[in-house]
């Protein structure tokens, strides 16, 4: 690579490398933190909606991602969508709040919901990091979300959590060892049912299997949380209220 190219092109991100490994062939383009395109696996085309470098999701990025989902619905009805999740949560800033970033994040989730209703399979895969609203707007908006073994998922880092809750850090750290609802980490998010599982080894095989699965009529995250012992009350409380008791 010559010096000019090195200056103009950002280094290839782990998100782009992951996409390469997942598909037989992938044609993607990158604009800042946003990576979009189409991958092919066993002759089947799959839309790719991804972010790189632990992106902060500002109103502009959320909007660009929503645009991509709308375009897939229009141009390729029924095509499955793979979201490669890699973010540090929503961007914290005055401008984003002035614009109403919550509305942009909600719009992105709404587009993904509509895509699923219109018959697009939507699969999530957390690459490096997913934080709080960045997990809610993307990971929770999928039929099923998975994670890479080295990924991190969290609501808040433990030291910040300690400041806000006023529970000492060493006590929090100690509690995290036994409580899956409290601390960061893929293992905890698997136990509470938010992540279906970990993808390692033959990544294409995992993707193939996820795509082959028929989408359920209902979201099964509550059932998973109960089976795995990480979220034991949510399913029954919701069912009780639904029954009007």
């Amino acid at each position, binding site marked *: 690579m010559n010096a000019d190219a090195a200056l103009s092109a950002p280094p290839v991100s782990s998100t782009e490398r992951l996409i390469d490994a997942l598909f037989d062939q992938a044609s993607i383009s990158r604009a800042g933190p946003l990576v979009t395109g189409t991958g092919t696996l066993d002759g089947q085309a799959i839309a790719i909606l991804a972010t790189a470098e632990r992106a902060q999701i500002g109103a502009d990025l959320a909007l660009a991602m929503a645009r991509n989902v709308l375009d897939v619905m*229009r141009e390729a009805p029924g095509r499955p969508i793979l979201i490669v999740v890699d973010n540090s949560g929503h961007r914290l800033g005055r401008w984003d709040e002035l614009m109403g970033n919550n509305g942009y994040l909600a719009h992105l989730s709404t587009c993904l919901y509509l895509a699923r209703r219109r018959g697009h399979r939507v699969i999530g895969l957390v690459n490096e990091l997913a934080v709080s609203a960045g997990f809610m707007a993307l990971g929770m908006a999928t039929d099923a979300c998975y994670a890479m073994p080295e990924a991190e998922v969290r609501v808040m880092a433990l030291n910040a959590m300690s400041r806000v809750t006023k529970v000492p850090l060493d006590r929090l750290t100690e509690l995290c060892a036994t409580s899956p609802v409290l601390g960061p980490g893929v293992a905890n998010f698997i136990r509470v049912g938010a992540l279906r599982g970990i993808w390692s080894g033959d990544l294409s095989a995992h993707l193939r299997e996820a795509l082959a699965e028929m989408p359920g009529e209902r979201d099964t995250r509550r059932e998973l949380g109960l089976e795995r012992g990480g979220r034991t009350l949510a399913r029954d409380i919701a069912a009780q209220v639904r029954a009007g008791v």
Partner: protein
Amino acid sequence: MIPARHSFQEAGARARIRALLDAGTFREFCGPAQRHTSPHLPTLGMPVAFDEGVVVGEGAIDGRPVLIAAQEGAFMGGAVGEVHGAKITGLIERALDTRPDAVVLLLDSGGVRLHEANAGLIAVGEIQRAVFDARAAGIPVVTVIGGRNGCYGGTSIIARSCDRIIASEEGRLSVSGPEVIEAVEGVEEFDAQDRALVWRTMGAKHRRLIGEIDALVADDMEAFRGAVSESLGKSRPLDLDELEAEHARLAERLARFEGVSDAREIWAALGVNDPDRVSEIEADEFNRLVATLEGARA
């Protein structure tokens, strides 16, 4: 004589529900007598609430059936934990079975409850999905904001996933809290002590002016009741055309206000003659201003 206002903001969750529903129609589900409390709070030495900080049930407004949830802002800032969230999810899902004229969510929350962060985050996602399912079935979901905690974090995303948002002048709606922005990005980015800045960045009047909320009312139970009553049976379609229209609206805002740093610049650009007065005017005068601006644009 002007009758004394009955403040929504000052009232607790149960009083809000009583004031909004027809007298004697409320039936609570999973109520405090059942003692479904958080199993996670005692581990951290925190007190529990028998209703888990949220009241859910069904009743009627002007004789029309509704499902209603009210977060109790005085308990843990209305934050969403596992049981709290499951109560709201179950309530919204009940709409698919009973087909009420609306599901009404009185949100008063800082977002996810950090003491059970992971369960709270997932719960917020499950609530959002239940909102979409109800909307897709043609049942309107209405958010009401007027409590002390405003509507922040994941609950702000739930609010914008609904058909309609009603808020009082005192209401605030934002994904990040002022203290969090200041703590992470510095006081130059956001001074959380500057109440006027907080208000004009996140407050209901700004949100109404840019089109993020649909109705602004005075902090008065009757005003809220009237606005909720008007929303019954009115759902917004959840289809591609509607989302394209929403997308165009959101895109136009970002393009138009790129680089703007203060809400008053936005209000002036929208046609408000005296942006400094916006904070002072009462709901009625403010709504006349909005109507004039919308008329001018139409």
